[in-house]
């Protein structure tokens, strides 16, 4: 794999764009370009800023340039029996580290191990003044200055270009099994949320196709012990199931392609929240805390119902929809007016000319 540091060239491109405030669309591999709003004509390709900069397994820290593919990072970790514990979805074979952090997405292990942002320790950032800045570092504990590195996770590149990220990594559990049992959605929610309060080594729980699946991972002893406390039958080829869930490759996620209408919504609720009565098909992940819905219902109606249950909604995929700002529907949950005002001020503090991924998250942000 080629290794290159193109931060100087990227800085020059940003300086040029700043001259006449040209909006820039930050592009890694493009694997998550379906998320959020707006494409701009001028792209800044960061995918060749790549290479693992530092990785010492006994430090539990990996630092890489942001164009490095997740695949390469996971292969390096795998050799040392370690992993990215937030189990990031790739959504494409060349998914990059930068895009993964910028989108802030996490996989099935998230409720048990933490999210993408939880594992961010530091970053190198190119801001909207054309400055290259370093925040955080390569150590677990660091309270010097505001936590700008974690702010970048889930900011969709609107605050600057991530050049380099340091992540905490963890050992891969030596043993793992998955058990499944048939039940109703309500029973699945009850048992998955009850497991969140039990000291068992569970690191995945989902419900789809009338079955509740629970993944148990840890030392061989711990897995054996927990196996006897969690109901269900052990399933073969469990890795394929969790991989397909993480990558949205289960048949459930292909539903919209066949019908051609409806959208995929990501619904965040408290894990124990009762099943929501919204027409469509459902898949529950994260022990009930993240729920996927394919529905033809109006997004306003969905938002209203979810809000009543104490949650919020993002429109995750809608192939029929125009992704540009022509469509004014907010893809992400709208913010309260005082919070939105604060977001604008923060954005202005990093990117005063509003050149980075303008409008990707919210209008004008």
């Amino acid at each position: 794999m080629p290794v290159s540091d193109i931060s100087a060239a990227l800085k020059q491109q940003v300086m040029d764009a700043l001259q006449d405030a040209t909006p820039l669309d930050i592009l890694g591999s493009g694997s998550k370009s379906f998320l959020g709003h707006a494409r701009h004509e001028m792209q800044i390709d960061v995918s060749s800023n790549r290479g693992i900069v530092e990785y010492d397994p006994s430090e539990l820290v990996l630092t890489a340039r942001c164009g490095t593919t997740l695949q390469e990072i996971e292969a390096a970790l795998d050799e040392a029996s370690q992993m990215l514990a937030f189990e990031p979805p790739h959504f494409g074979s060349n998914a990059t580290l930068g895009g993964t952090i910028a989108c802030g997405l996490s996989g099935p292990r998230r409720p048990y191990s933490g999210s993408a942002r939880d594992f961010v320790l530091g970053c190198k950032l190119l801001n909207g003044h054309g400055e290259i800045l370093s925040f955080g570092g390569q150590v677990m504990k660091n309270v010097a200055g505001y936590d700008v590195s974690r702010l970048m996770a889930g900011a969709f590149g609107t605050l600057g270009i991530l050049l380099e990220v340091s992540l905490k990594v963890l050992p891969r559990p030596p043993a793992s099994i998955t058990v499944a049992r048939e039940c109703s959605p309500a029973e699945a929610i009850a048992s998955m949320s009850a497991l969140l309060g039990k000291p068992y080594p569970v690191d995945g729980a989902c419900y789809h196709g009338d079955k509740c699946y629970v993944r148990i991972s840890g030392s061989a002893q711990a897995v054996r012990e927990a196996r006897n406390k969690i109901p269900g039958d052990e399933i073969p080829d469990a890795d394929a199931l969790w991989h397909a869930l993480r990558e949205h490759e289960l048949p459930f996620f292909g539903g919209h392609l066949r019908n051609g209408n409806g959208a995929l919504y990501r619904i965040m609720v408290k894990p124990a929240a009762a099943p929501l009565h919204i027409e469509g098909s459902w898949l529950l992940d994260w022990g009930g805390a993240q729920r996927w819905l394919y529905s033809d219902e109006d997004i306003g109606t969905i938002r209203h119902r979810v809000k009543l249950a104490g949650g919020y909604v993002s429109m995750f995929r809608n192939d029929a929809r125009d992704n540009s700002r022509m469509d004014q529907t907010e893809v992400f949950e709208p913010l309260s007016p005082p919070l939105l005002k604060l977001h604008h001020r923060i954005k202005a503090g990093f990117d005063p000319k509003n050149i980075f991924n303008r409008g990707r998250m919210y209008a004008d942000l």
Partner: protein
Amino acid sequence: MPHQHEKIAAPATESNNRLIGALRSFLPPESVLADAEDLHPFECDGLAVYRQLPMAVVLPETIQQVQKIMQLCHAHQVPVVARGAGTGLSGGALPLSDGVLLSLAKFKNILHVDPHNGMATVQPGVRNQAISEAAAAFGLYYAPDPSSQIACTIGGNVAENSGGVHCLKYGLTVHNILMLKVVTMEGELLTIGAETLDSPGYDLLALMTGSEGMLGIIVEVTVKLLPRPERAQVVLAAFDDVEKAGKAVGAIIAAGIIPAGLEMMDKPAIRAAEDFVHAGYPRDAEAILLCELDGTNAEVSEYILAVRKILNGSGATEVRTAADEAERQLFWKGRKSAFPAVGRISPDYYCMDGTIPRHQLPRVLRRIGEMSKESGLAVANVFHAGDGNLHPLILFDANREGELHRAEELGRRILELCVEVGGTITGEHGVGIEKIDAMCTQFRGAELNQFHAVKAAFDPAGLLNPGKAVPTLHRCAEFGAMHVHHGQLPHPELERF
């Protein structure tokens, strides 16, 4: 750390009197303090070498009162410093002579424990340990456990992003909270984060955590609760060489084991602790490691065996597993008493809080040893070895001419060393006023400017805890000049804000 001197309150001005009058118009009389004798209990936090009387202290008990206080102070352009239990170790809650000190001491209710969703909503003045006590009935607890957990409050924990001895496995405050209610300097009430695992928009929860009262007043906190592990067990290992102990730490982690706690102490710290609490530590060891494993019963047994094998293989002179819960508590008591134990053998000590990449430990300890000899001041080291957070305790006697100054100088050099090896000037105690100059070593002007831009987004008027946490570039320029003058302050009569 400055030379200790106490300052008197600023003389009452007409404008201040008007503000105090306005505060008294809606707060009960006992909730607005403005007489010097009432102000004294608030003059410092846990770093008592810095003292300052505020113009006034307010003790609101509702969010609406906090909002009104902030609106008034904003209108009068008076700075506000928030305070929890005042146990902070970096002077973050040090009052300002022309400012209002806002105490959250009356916000001490646990509002809601939700065992089904593993969360609790509490007011900011609730003590850290009280949350775990309230959750215990459900087999749950709140994981971060700073050593001051009996007294420190959750609001202060959020402001400082407090850690504890279990950070490597369970994370810091930032990993264990879900939602905050925050009042801005302008008096606006914001909800940051959500009761769900993720929340929409920017991760402002990360920005607020560890922001040291610079961005907003925390008036409500929703924390995550975790299931209490079935079993915890601790192994004590002794070494005749600090380097071997350091390598053993790396070997445990390389074996794929994440201990719940992994602590190291060097000889001076071992002896002080042993003499104080008789924890059964080997007094002749150059270093000891305490390795705690938690999880299910069988899992802990399996890992204890593995860890013992690694420790023996790393050249430990002795490996002991706590025989029972009482001995486990005793092993921990020694470690947790290390600071007061050092306080017994030295009239004063200065606690540092650097973090370093773990493999740099031998080099850093060797350099600290050399610098300690050069300065003529002894140093005892306790180390959160799992996450690289080092607490060198510099022993000195403030009554001896020049020793405080030498301790400060040695502390400054230790922090510079931490930055030099790729670490940071503060792992968990915060910058506050204490390490404001060290920030100039860690960050360049461009990063500091970015921090100021973040601050301005939340607090455009710059009235929240001004002068703490992030130095001005002007200040760093002056600090740079101090280096040239061998640490001699150009204007010792000036406050070092």
